[in-house]
């Protein structure tokens, strides 16, 4: 079973040389730490930055320079700043190659819910609805079950939807799942996790790939 760093490491393997990538708040942000050294990936932050660098040294912290999670960051060489309209312009026009998001629920048809629990909790959708409506390739990084132990991989989202049929892949602590016309397709399982356990924890339609294999994250 993976921890959140393991999930981030696995997603980092989806990155390709020259990709422009938007990483959401939470586990997705961690992906930046595991970009393979032999490729170049440019991170987009929807608050107006292309080219997010590592967290600053303490003396370099700059209140005017944050990522979409409101964390202080730095810039890489070749970075650029722009306003929020242009930022979502590049997202909507499909110039971002990969988007990694957290989620509360994902349905087996690719629907995603991640912004609201009616009557209990409202974070707001932030940029998520724009991202899921436009991104070419969306990977969800999340825990397989919620705090109550209930599956977050469902037949239908029970929470208010963020976007319809948009998720392409889900990576959880248990495995990697492609969204297919037949539902979640398990293509990899985490070390020490049985396929039966995955079946038990997945409420949506689940199929197992013929060539399913153990996940490698190093």
């Amino acid at each position, binding site marked *: 079973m993976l921890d959140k760093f393991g999930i981030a490491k696995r997603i980092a393997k989806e990155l390709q040389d020259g990709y422009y990538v938007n990483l959401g708040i939470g586990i997705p942000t961690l992906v930046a730490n595991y970009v393979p050294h032999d490729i170049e990936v440019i991170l987009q932050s929807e608050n107006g930055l292309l080219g997010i660098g590592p967290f600053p040294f303490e003396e370099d912290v700059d209140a*005017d320079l944050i990522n*979409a999670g409101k964390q202080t960051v730095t810039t890489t060489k070749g970075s650029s700043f722009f*306003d*929020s309209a242009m930022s979502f*312009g590049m997202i*909507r026009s499909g110039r971002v190659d990969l988007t990694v998001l957290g989620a509360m629920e994902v349905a087996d048809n690719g629907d995603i819910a991640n912004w609201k629990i009616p009557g209990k909790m*409202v974070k707001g959708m932030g940029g998520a*609805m*724009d991202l899921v409506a436009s991104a070419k390739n969306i990977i969800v990084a999340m825990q397989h079950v919620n705090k109550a132990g209930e599956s977050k991989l469902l037949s239908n989202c029970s929470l208010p939807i963020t976007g*319809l049929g948009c998720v392409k892949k889900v990576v959880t602590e248990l495995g990697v799942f492609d969204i297919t016309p037949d539902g979640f397709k398990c293509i990899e399982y985490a070390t020490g996790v049985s396929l039966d356990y995955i079946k038990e924890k997945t409420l949506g339609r689940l199929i197992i790939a013929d060539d399913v294999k153990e996940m490698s994250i190093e």
Partner: protein
Amino acid sequence: MLKKVVKNAEEAVKDITDGATIMLGGFGLCGIPENSITALVNKGVKNLTCISNNAGVDDFGIGLMLKTRQVKKMIASYVGENAEFERQLLSGELEVELIPQGTLATRCMATGYGIPAIYTPAGVGTEVAEGKETREFDGKTYLMEHAFKSDFAIVKAWKGDTHGNLIFRATSRNFNPLMAMAGKITIVEVEELVQPGELDPDMIHTPGIYVNRIFKGVNYEKRIEQITVTKR
């Protein structure tokens, strides 16, 4: 002569009255018009409709105006860092319209560009689409979204000149130039106010034509929500 420079925040917001609709720049606490928010709190103006990406935190930014119950309605995209906001929202004390961040940004731009409506895919099939017109283009469904109408836009820039030309710094740009274009009256506070000719005309983010009032702000706190550092 162009008479845009005002003395301070108090003078800049003096004709903002109860019930006004105000746009406020910033993303989180980054690039927010601190001086103007303080002036609005001191002035005690009420029943405001505020359009801003976030609503500050409990004791800073727009959060200060929520605490004093000056805000009737909040239009924002994300409120995850504000407990008081979430409480007022869930209890129904505060009217809230949550809209996708890109839609928020683009609707500001539409106003500034004199475009009454645009189409965006964000929110199709969600609560956001309720009551909105949808339309297909090339087989994909979009929502029609309207330009914002507001009485005032209040933004924070890094540098500005007395003609109202503005330059923003790093990610404190965010919604500021968009809202600067969108106010019926646009009020700008800057860290540095310079004379015309001191800013490179190629490097102006907001041309002065969009700016009605400008003043040099004081005592910027520039609070950071999450200080994250790399250890040496």
